[in-house]
């Protein structure tokens, strides 16, 4: 099992190396290597999952496998404690499930990219980055300690940066890449400090050893500090408020990348890390409450912005933020299984929606939904799979999103967070509305661009369905979006004796719920959201412009994304830049002066010493004898009666 786990990480790494150094000029070969590597990873991760599943019921952690090797060992130096860092593999239900999700989506996206990136000058580079990402992400998933997690955490951040800025000649893309990188740096810095403190307090990075060590330190202030700092890492990576600003801009990257990294896997890494280190967070109730409310707030906040966006990818990006908020909310109210369940189903339907959007963009070369329209007739497969994805996201029975969203709503209700429950319902309504606003506008209607801008048709007359490399992943993901939720349903539980919840939660039984009240309320709400979208954008019984005008200030607030970017820009331009100027001055005149002086003096000394090297043999011999003589005299003074001292 350990071998498969290592293999599934190394296959994409091998592909990355091979593409970067060997097949860079052979574009198609690069793609084939990358797809093969992702396929190997997927097969191996399936074997892991089967291995974990076939373990006896209730085996808990013993169902998996854990192996590690000493990576770096620094002995203690006096008062300074040494450092023991291991690199290991932890296979358990959680990591097995996550690696299946990651490698499956990566596999499908890599295939899809074959069609999407066709003819791009950076074709090989693109696939090498995809493989590097798969390697980093899978390494993160199977890591058995915080240190290794941090290393791969940074690596996925790097891949995200490289891929957002893939078309680096475009200023908006390179700006977005930098924005993502810098925003994540802030969060990662806190995360890093947290991880270091973890080691200082507990003497280990290992997840298993930490969970027992933490149990003994419950209630202490330092535990709260560590948990809070570590928690900031996931906030950045999963783009939760106030770190959310980078994700919408990250849509500058190629669309398959948005599907893989910025919807299904990397942004879910934050959720995964919280699940992985659940023992740490659970022991600090304050952090859990913050997590729940921050998640709930982000869900509502992002969903409200999504209501007014016009760019198809940005709508989906805000939707991702909102759904990640749901997951945080679930984790915060204490239900790891609900959070992970939603992560799983969301990975499938959100990847589907992004790939569908990619298919549309590929065909129309347009991202504004109001300049599309009537695409449903031209692109049947894309349209139908997109609708399935949207229904799953809206939580319509019996699609995947229904089960996981209900699980979250039920968890918040049963843990006594009525406010969050109501908020969750509101988000469900908004989600259904903005998704079907998109669908009725882009896929519905008859003419292109007929709705908002008054129609400038025939521009998209050439639009046609994408090729099989793109449609097959869409179909596979659509099937998963329909059925993946069933693993968390009561039917699955009664048929197989276990369900997603009991499986993933370290063997602790947590049965699937189907609370009829919750289920019916959320279904009714979602359906009414769709109905309202149909009224406004399908039938056009209500004029969108008139609603926007009626809600003037609110609309502008949403349209400007609550002015968060502007606030950050102000903070950075005024405060950070001001500080930067001051430091620049200090650096330039004081620090540089000091070190230039030091360096100059050192160099001068070197030039003087160099003169000893005359090239004359006699001189060299003299130095040898003189050195021996001096050493003898110096060391034997004591013996000779100390006449020199």
């Amino acid at each position, binding site marked *: 099992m350990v071998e498969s786990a290592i293999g599934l990480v190394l296959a994409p790494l091998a592909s990355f190396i091979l593409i970067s150094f060997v097949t860079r000029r052979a574009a198609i070969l690069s793609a084939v290597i990358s797809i093969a590597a992702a396929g190997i990873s997927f097969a191996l991760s399936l074997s892991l999952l089967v291995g974990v599943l076939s373990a006896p019921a209730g085996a808990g952690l013993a169902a998996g496998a854990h192996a590690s090797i000493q*990576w770096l060992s620094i002995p203690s*130096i006096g008062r300074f404690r040494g450092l023991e860092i291991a690199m290991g593999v932890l296979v358990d239900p959680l990591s097995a499930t996550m690696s299946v999700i990651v490698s499956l989506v990566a596999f499908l996206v890599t295939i899809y990219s074959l069609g999407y990136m066709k003819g791009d000058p950076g074709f090989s580079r693109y696939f090498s980055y995809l493989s590097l990402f798969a390697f980093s992400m899978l390494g993160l998933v199977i890591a058995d300690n915080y240190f290794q997690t941090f290393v791969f955490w940074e690596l996925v951040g790097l891949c995200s940066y490289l891929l957002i800025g893939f078309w680096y000649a475009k200023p908006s893309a390179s700006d977005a890449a930098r924005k993502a990188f810098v925003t994540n740096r802030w969060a990662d810095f806190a995360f890093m400090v947290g991880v270091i403190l973890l080691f200082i307090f507990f003497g280990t990075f290992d997840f298993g050893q930490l969970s027992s060590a933490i149990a003994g330190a419950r209630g202490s202030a330092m535990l709260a500090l560590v948990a809070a700092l570590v928690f900031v890492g996931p906030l950045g990576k999963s783009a939760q408020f106030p770190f959310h600003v980078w994700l919408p801009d990250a849509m500058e990257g190629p669309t398959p990348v948005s599907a893989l990294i910025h919807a299904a896997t990397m942004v879910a890494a934050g959720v995964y890390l919280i699940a992985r280190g659940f023992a740490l967070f659970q022991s600090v109730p304050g952090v859990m409450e913050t997590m729940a409310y921050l998640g709930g707030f982000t869900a509502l906040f992002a969903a409200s912005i999504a209501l007014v966006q016009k760019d198809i990818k940005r709508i989906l990006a805000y939707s991702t933020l909102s759904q990640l908020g749901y997951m945080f909310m679930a984790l915060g109210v204490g239900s790891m299984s609900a959070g992970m369940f939603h992560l799983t189903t969301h990975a499938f339907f959100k990847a589907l929606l992004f790939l569908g959007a990619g298919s549309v963009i590929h065909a129309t070369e347009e991202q504004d939904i109001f300049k599309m329209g009537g695409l449903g007739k031209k692109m049947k497969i894309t349209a139908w799979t997109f609708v399935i994805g949207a229904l799953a996201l809206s939580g319509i029975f019996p699609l995947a999103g229904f089960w996981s969203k209900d699980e979250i709503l039920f968890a918040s209700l049963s843990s006594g967070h009525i406010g969050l429950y109501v908020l969750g319902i509101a988000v469900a309504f908004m989600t259904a509305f903005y998704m079907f606003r998109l669908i009725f506008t882009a896929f519905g209607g008859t003419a292109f661009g007929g709705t908002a801008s008054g129609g400038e048709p025939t521009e998209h007359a050439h639009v046609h369905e994408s090729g099989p490399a793109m449609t097959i992943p869409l179909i596979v993901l659509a099937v998963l979006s329909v059925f993946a939720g069933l693993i968390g349903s009561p039917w699955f539980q009664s048929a197989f004796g276990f369900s997603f919840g009991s499986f993933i939660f370290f063997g602790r039984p947590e049965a699937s719920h189907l609370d009829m009240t919750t289920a019916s309320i959320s279904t009714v709400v979602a359906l009414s959201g769709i109905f309202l979208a149909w009224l406004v954008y399908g039938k056009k019984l209500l004029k969108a412009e008139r609603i926007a005008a009626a809600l003037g200030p609110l609309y502008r607030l949403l349209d400007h994304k609550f002015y968060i970017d502007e606030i950050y820009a102000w903070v950075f331009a005024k405060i950070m830049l001001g500080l930067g100027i001051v430091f620049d001055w200090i650096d330039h005149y004081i620090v540089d002066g000091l070190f230039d002086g030091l360096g100059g003096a050192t160099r001068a000394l070197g030039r003087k010493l160099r003169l000893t090297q005359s090239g004359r043999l006699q001189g060299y011999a003299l*130095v040898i004898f003189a050195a021996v003589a001096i050493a003898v005299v110096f060391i034997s003074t004591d013996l000779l009666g100390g006449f020199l001292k």
Partner: protein
Amino acid sequence: MDFSAIRLELVAALIALGLLVFGLLTPRGKREVIGYIAAAAFLGLLALSFLAPGGGGSFQGGLYLDDPLSLFFKRLFITAAFLVSLMSLRFAKSLEESRSEFFSLLGFSLVGMMMLASANDFVSLYIGLELMSLPLVILTAYDRTSGKSTEAGTKYILLSAISSAVLLFGLSLLFGATGSFSYSDTLKALGSVADDPLVVIGSIMVVAGFAFKISAVPFHMWSPDIYEGAPAPVAAFLAVGSKAAGFAALIRLLLFALPASSGDFPLLILSLSVLSMVVGNLIALPQTNMKRLLAYSSIAHAGYILLGLVAASTAGVAAMLYYLVLYLFANVGIFAALSAFGEAGGSSEISSLKGMWKRSPFMAASLLVCLLSLAGIPPAAGFIGKFYLLAEVARQGKLWLAALALVMSVVSISYYISVIRVIVMEKAEDESRIRVSLANKAILAVSVLVTLGMGVFPAPITEWTRAIAGSIVR
């Protein structure tokens, strides 16, 4: 008599003799093959040292030890000989008359190094030393068309003779004081006569003889001139093989033969180390010739590695061994690049490396990694090696020494980086691509892989060196 303790030496000597005979038997036009045969033979010897490591033991009643430490060093030397013979393939092409002798001399020098690593007696020590040095002298002067090479050879043999004289004088004084050539007898006898001036003078002279080999300041002055004059592969062999052999002998001498921990004696090693670090790094700063720069860098590195003997503990010796491995690969990588560059018509002036990044990205990248390793910048291995050495010195309370080494290491970054700057950032006048031979490519690839491997995943070699050090240090 049981020859199993010296089987590697016997095979190495057979290889050296065989190459000589083979060279005579091969018709003149076909002698190109000799270099390949030499490389293959050394590779086979390396394999033998792993496949049949032997069970330890000694030869001639303790004259000669076959223990983990000597085995470690022998593997190091054989690796160096293998890589250097690969590196020499192109250089040896120009030697129509004396090609087989070149590789044969390499083999004899290798036997001498192996003897130094195993010697447990002053006589075998001295024979090993001369067997190593004399072939190196010839190799240094091998490029008969170059005045510098001849000059270097002359300087080397004269200075070698002087240092041997110092060493021999010291040995005779020790023999006079103890009446024995064996290490263990000497240490036993010295326990009672450690305060004898004869012993002190003798010990200092013995240490001075080996300080010359490792080019520690103030016994370093030969090395810049000789590195500069010698053909690049020979300079590489001097820098890694001869130096490591000097350390092999010093470790054993200072831990098992001489009263190194009594009186002011530790101060001697300490001053050698400090002087080497300071002087080596400072004089390296204004250098304009790459080979001279490497000579000073190797002097400075002798200082760092001596820190392990200053500590004289298990961890200290382990750190030395670790450092010697990474030092070997970093230097071999740099010299291979220089020698490939020389084959393409380049000189060893630093300014001629301009625009290497464009002319041969692979070579430039390899140089970069190896230079960063010597500078001690992660993820190259040099960082870990320096860390182990400094950590051990600091653990023993000599924080000032660790701080000094750190400062000097910062100074060294300045000259390594300035080479990197020339390679990466400056534009070449001649932008033609450099063809790197397959053999040199292989050497560069191995050096880079080991350098990065030891830097990213240090645990296996660390454990290996700790086990070896643990088996010999009390």
